[in-house]
């Protein structure tokens, strides 16, 4: 098999699985889940084939999709080191989450729909990774949006899930509008939307880099990666099943926005990069604060994801796309682990999600707890864990750039350790605070295996020297660039000290402040207004809600009046009436008598005669 064939097989395997499930196994949960897991395994195996075949080069393949005259839309693969790194991560983590879902969704009635959705999602996600042009990326971008919509709303009967899936879909459309404009502008500007061709054009003439295109394309990233101001959908999306949160809203789809930026990094001028840096940093800090106001274990993790996405965006904005990719990969490992761990706990506690109703989990679910804590340590950036290396690199990059971003991002690290410490102390230690928690039981093998594998990766994933040579080329480049920058040694020491201080202070501080296995939130008790402010996510949702309810709704009301009277009343009814009238007239011409029909021919001939003799021209 050539690399191209392997990639095609990897791309089509989940599509086939989804088709089989949709057409034949809609009501056979067991068969459907088996097919889906096999497809996920096939993706991973084919990806490995492709990477082995690729060597250290890259694979480019392209097929014409639509051709007419000189206009051509093609579909193709652009598979380089970056794509290979991302593909390996998505395929592997995706496979583990599929396996986890086998156990987690075992009792679900609509299992076939769930696994079909997972397969469709994998197909769309691989499409984004492999696509070689912006139009193709956009198509698959919308497909992940659709599958995310479908999976968030999996628990159809709850009001919350329905509202959350709708919110995610609509908020993403706002970002995609900008994305679409960016694509059209890019096509107009460069004459192509192919990534390598655009790279060639920009490399030949750096003046062609256009800030407007970059800003428009960035809108797609802001929507998909839930950056400010479109971040509001991600916490709500936690209404979906936990494996979905792990797969889509932690490891892969939300990171696809960052990956997309890395793919088109050459299109970004300094000004836009600076903007992304500030944006990412502010989200990193903002989300860190919000996490303190949450009691739902998944929502805490969701804000943590937002915050870490902010770190990635900051790394990209600082001009180190490789470091952003590095953090994306390590984050995928430990955040998938944390979400799956949370899923295991929720499953064990009979779908209890409030951390103040848990407590004492460590004794009941030891393996889950150990792997979860390892994930927390990786997230906090403890020396030697994967998160340390990538976060360290981001902080150094920020330090080299300037003081403000550096201090904000370092402060973010303190916040991270704090809210994760809060979660750990309250959930795992002390005494069980509800019936559900006291009857908690360790999960089954299919759920523990992914946890263990991911825990190993969360510890070791950052050891770049052990990565296969085909992967992470761009990461190595940026690491070298960072090492050779002036002032690296000083910053390195400073970051090492501050970073270690962050996790020690954060974890210990939260222990002292909240206490082991606390039954109520100390912050809420001592400083209720602050807590309320954090809990309400700094009122962003309220502001949007106000805007939608008071301004947009009124405007919509006005439009609706216009719609009813002018469009529906006059235009639609009127035109329908007109069409009907003309239709009656034309119909009445078909009188059914041959005599009448011959006159039609005669009239036609007279008309042609008139034209032929040029009489018509006289008028």
């Amino acid at each position, binding site marked *: 098999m050539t690399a191209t064939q392997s990639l095609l097989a990897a791309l089509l395997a989940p599509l086939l699985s989804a088709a089989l499930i949709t057409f034949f196994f809609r009501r056979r949960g067991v068969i459907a889940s088996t097919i889906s897991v096999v497809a996920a395994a096939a993706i991973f195996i084919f990806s490995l084939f492709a990477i082995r075949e690729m060597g250290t080069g890259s694979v480019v393949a392209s097929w014409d999709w639509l051709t007419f005259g000189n206009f051509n839309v093609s579909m193709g693969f652009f598979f380089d080191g970056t794509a290979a790194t991302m593909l390996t991560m998505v395929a592997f983590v995706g496979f583990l989450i599929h396996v986890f879902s086998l156990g987690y969704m075992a009792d679900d009635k609509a299992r076939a729909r769930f696994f079909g959705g997972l397969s469709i999602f994998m197909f769309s996600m691989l499409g984004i990774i492999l696509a070689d042009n912006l139009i193709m990326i956009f198509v698959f971008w919308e497909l992940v949006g659709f599958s995310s919509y479908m999976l968030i709303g999996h628990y159809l009967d709850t009001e919350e899930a329905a509202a959350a899936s709708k919110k995610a879909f609509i908020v993403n459309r706002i970002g995609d509008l900008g994305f679409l404009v960016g694509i059209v502008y890019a096509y107009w500007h460069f004459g192509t939307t192919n990534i390598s061709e655009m790279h060639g054009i920009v490399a030949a003439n750096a003046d062609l880099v256009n800030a407007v295109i970059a800003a428009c394309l960035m809108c797609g990233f802001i929507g998909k990666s839930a950056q400010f101001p479109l971040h509001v959908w991600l916490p709500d999306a936690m209404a979906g099943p936990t494996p979905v949160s792990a797969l889509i809203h932690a490891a892969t789809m939300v990171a696809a926005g960052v990956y997309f930026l890395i793919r088109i990094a050459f299109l970004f001028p300094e000004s836009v990069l600076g903007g992304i840096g500030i944006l990412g940093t502010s989200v990193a800090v903002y989300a860190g604060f919000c996490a303190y106001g949450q009691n739902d274990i998944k929502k805490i993790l969701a804000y943590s994801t937002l915050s870490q996405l902010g770190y990635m965006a900051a790394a990209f904005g600082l001009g180190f796309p490789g470091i952003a990719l590095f953090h994306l990969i390590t984050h995928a490992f430990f955040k998938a682990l944390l979400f799956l761990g949370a899923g295991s706990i929720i499953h064990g506690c009979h779908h209890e999600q409030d951390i103040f109703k848990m407590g004492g989990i460590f004794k009941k679910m030891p393996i889950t707890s150990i792997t979860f804590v390892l994930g927390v340590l990786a997230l906090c950036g403890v020396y030697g864990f994967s998160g340390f290396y990538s976060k360290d690199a981001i902080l150094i990059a920020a330090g080299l750039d300037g003081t403000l971003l550096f201090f904000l991002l370092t402060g973010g690290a303190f916040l991270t350790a704090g809210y994760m410490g809060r979660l750990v102390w309250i959930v795992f230690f002390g005494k069980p605070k509800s019936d559900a928690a006291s009857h908690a039981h360790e999960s089954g093998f299919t759920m523990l295996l992914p946890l263990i594998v991911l825990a190993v990766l969360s510890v070791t994933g950052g050891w770049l020297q052990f990565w296969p040579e085909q992967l992470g080329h761009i990461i190595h480049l940026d690491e070298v660039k960072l090492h050779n920058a002036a002032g690296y040694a000083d910053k390195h020491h400073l970051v090492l000290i501050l970073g270690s201080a962050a996790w020690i202070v954060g974890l210990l501080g939260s222990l002292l402040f909240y206490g082991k296995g606390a039954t109520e939130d100390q912050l809420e008790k001592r400083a209720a207004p602050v807590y309320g402010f954090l809990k309400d996510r700094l009122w962003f949702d309220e502001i949007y809600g106000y805007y939608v309810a008071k301004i947009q709704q009124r405007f919509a009301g006005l439009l609706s009046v216009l719609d009813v009277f002018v469009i529906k009343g006059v235009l639609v009814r009127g035109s329908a009436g007109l*069409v009907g009238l003309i*239709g009656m007239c034309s*119909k009445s011409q078909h009188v059914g008598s041959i005599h009448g029909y*011959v006159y039609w*021919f005669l009239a036609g001939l007279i008309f*042609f005669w008139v*034209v*032929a003799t040029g009489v018509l021209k006289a008028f």
Partner: protein
Amino acid sequence: MNDLLAEFLRGYTANNQWAIIMPEIMLAVLALGLLGAEMVLPKKSHGLIPRLALWGQLFVLVVAMTAGSYIGFESKSYFSGMIYQTDITQFMRGFFLVCSILVCYLGHIYLSKQQLPKTEFYHLVIIISAAMMLLVQSSNFVMLFVALETVTVAFYVLVAYCRSSSLSLEAGLKYLVMGALSSSILLFGIVLLYGVAGNPELAFNSQDALNFDELRNFIALNSDNLLVRVGALLVIAGICFKIGAVPFQIWVPDVYQGSPTPVTAYLAVASKAAGFIVLLQLVTGPFMGLQGLLVPVLSFVAAATILFGNFAAVTQRNVKRLMGLSGIAHAGYILVGVIAAMRGVAWAPYAVIFYLVTYLLASFAVFGVMTHLAGSDDANQELDDYENLARKRPFLGGILACGLGSLAGIPPLGGFIGKLFLFVAAFQAELFGLLGISVLGVVISIYYYFGWVRECYFGNASDEVIHDVKAPFNMSDRVLLGALVVGTVIIGIVPAALPIIP
């Protein structure tokens, strides 16, 4: 005289040109073989005849395709300028064969519900197929007229095939009168052209004034001659009858309604396609020099056709008339592509063929469902008969929805891409007015196509089990209809699967 004839025949056998029209000859043999088989075979084995017809045509299709790839697709002239083969005509051979195979299959279903002689139906369908193949390959007006008449005369019989139905007989009579009228108009145009092109007073006059090449040179120099203009327009008028363009569309609804449904499908797809290919070859061949005259005329005809077809279809309740009237509208869209080809968009003819293929797939899906659902009273199929079809026969409902969706041009179905190609061609030819009218027409068409789909899917849920005549619905029906829809979807998603557009 005998010597001359022998010499003539020897000329052909020497370079073996007969092999060039082998598929047509094989079809003729097959058609005659069917009649022979009916005489020879005992009565109880007559069930073999439809099979023979189907498999025989499939065999010819294979032969035609392999021969096509063997001979190659270069343009070449044969039989002293009677036949001119191009890549388009090679492709259209396959197109017509697929049509006639589908018509024979639907005819088999139709005839199983009627008390009618069976063999002649297949015979005539195959003869028409062979004649249409020759029609699109002809590059001489005598050849063209003879082939056209073969098609038309066979259709006179097919349209009136259901002798027990007064509507079918009426349709046959109307088609006969109208067809004869249009043939006479066409012939009159040919005669005028022949006469004027043979006039030794005029530049580039020719002894072989029926040949397309000679005519092209002559007309290019004498495009202002009144007789040339009138002759060309009369020829175009004759072709307009075939494709059902305004103002020669008036026969369409009555004839479509009265004919047996498979024949309606044949008329709607194959006969119309043949007309369009002939029109394309005329306007890009002999009538090339008359662009200044023909572009405005055909533009007007196209606009009127699109508007008339769509408006008249809106209030229609009989589904066969609806298909006929909407078919008029489709003819209008294709005419836009023909005009684009006249204005020099080199790939526009291929866009037309692409559209014809998507039209074939979608139309036969719809006509297939209609044939299945029709009772013995074939002509009166109303929209009301389709109420709650999706609940009663979900498979047929799905096929119908896909076929109608493709006809209306909804992505990701093939009809969307077909329309897209035509409209881009029109855009490149700067036919903005026609483009606007076409888009308007498409919008109107969605109204009545989806009205039909609505009847199937969102009709009033009634508990009474409606008795419907269930035709035996076996696996091969399922496969055939499914294949049409799958083809439509594949073309819609991967247009390159149909490598027509160069």
